């Protein structure tokens, strides 16, 4: 695939980027919803049942594989695009451009790389711990569930962990701010009436996702 990804047309690449991006945008909302259960249920039962359901339901198993594929394609295409774009301007300007344009759009590769590093750490901390590590169990209504909630809460009591987590999520918010409306533009969905609505929605979405994820560790840490 990597060799053909180099030969895909520029328009195909941006369409693939946007489709995978939209998929990840939806995933983040699901992820956030499950995490928020931790806020509203101090017994962790809701969260653990939801996390268990997400990890074991056969339909979601398939989604999990597509999610990994989505991440990998999005990252791979993003890197290929960026390298080609650097090659397209071998000699740089002395005075770099400062056109009046969307600020975050200029740093997608930078924010993207930070998010990628965070993603790897995040998978090691939680996902692989659940799959391969030892997670204590908890009995809920006579069934045993891995107590992922406890793992999360333990992590969220480490100050350095929270600081890195918050910074990463703010950067994710920056990435999403451009990504949301950009995905629609790439798919050709540009309209005098709806594009401003999509841009506003993108701003709201990026703030809600970043803040939503950030509130949880802060709440756990301070209460």
């Amino acid at each position, binding site marked *: 695939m990597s060799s053909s990804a180099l030969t895909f047309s520029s328009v195909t690449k941006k369409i693939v980027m946007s489709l995978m991006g939209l998929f990840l945008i939806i995933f983040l909302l699901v992820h956030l919803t499950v995490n928020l259960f931790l806020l509203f249920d101090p017994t962790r039962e809701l969260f653990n049942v939801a996390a268990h359901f997400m990890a074991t339901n056969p339909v979601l198993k398939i989604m999990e594989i597509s999610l990994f594929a989505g991440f990998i394609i999005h990252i791979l295409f993003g890197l290929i695009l960026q390298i080609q774009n650097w090659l397209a301007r071998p000699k740089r300007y002395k005075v770099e451009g400062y*056109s009046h344009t*969307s600020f975050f759009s*200029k740093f997608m590769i930078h924010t993207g790389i930070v998010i990628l590093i965070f993603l790897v750490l995040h998978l090691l901390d939680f996902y692989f711990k659940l799959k391969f590590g030892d997670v204590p169990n908890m009995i809920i209504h006579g069934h045993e569930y891995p107590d992922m909630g406890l793992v999360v809460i333990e992590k969220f009591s480490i100050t350095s962990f929270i600081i890195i987590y918050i910074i990463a999520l703010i950067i994710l918010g920056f990435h999403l701010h451009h990504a949301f409306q950009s995905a629609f533009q790439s798919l050709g969905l540009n309209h005098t009436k709806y594009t401003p609505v999509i841009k506003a929605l993108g701003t709201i979405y990026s703030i809600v996702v970043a803040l939503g994820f950030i509130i949880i560790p802060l709440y756990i840490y301070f209460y």
Partner: protein
Amino acid sequence: MDFTLKIWKQANSKAKGKFETFKVKDISADCSFLEMLDILNEDLIDKVQLPINFDHDCREGICGMCSLYINGRPHGPDQGITVCQMHMRNFKNGSKIVIEPWRSKAFPVIKDLMVDRSAFDEIIQAGGYVSVTTGGVPDANSIPIRKELADLSMDAAACIGCGACVATCKNASAMLFVSAKVSQFALLPQGKVEAKRRVQAMVAKMDELGFGNCTNTYACEAECPKNISVSNIARMNREFLGAKLGAQKA
């Protein structure tokens, strides 16, 4: 007005090139940017030095030949205008002005501030036309066209192909140019006939020539002297997707 100019000098496409500093004095605020360079060149010729090479032709904002990257912006600080139409009153007296050529792999420097933009011609040759069989001149208005579509097509056709979009894009992408040329035809019944073939051929040519990939920063729209909208890029993406998905098996 007095200015200090830092100008890119490069003897030919192979040479390395470097910045040189020049001073101009007593320039009128109503002088256009190119006239200011003319004055500098007269001065250099008087001193038996090589004048600075830069592209220009009509000097009235319609040919798209002028192409200077000034203080980090193609066509300089004014909005919606080519550099030939931009006046020295846009600068502070005594300020330093850095002038660079368009920088892009697809636009190699020929000399000083002059770049080779024949890549754009190649893209047009790939599909930026309507094939016609000869015959009598058709009557005006024999094909009904909705006013809004005609207007959108005219807006796209306002593109003068100067290359400012490529110059300003951090990815050196030519999408705004190509999408304007795709759109001006795709919107009209005469252009629709070949629309599918056209969009694929022009995009393929653009990629082949080494332009970068668009990442929707919209710097192109902000800097375009003709205010071409990025909605044209979305239209091109739609056209392209439709052409690819709808294509019959060969």
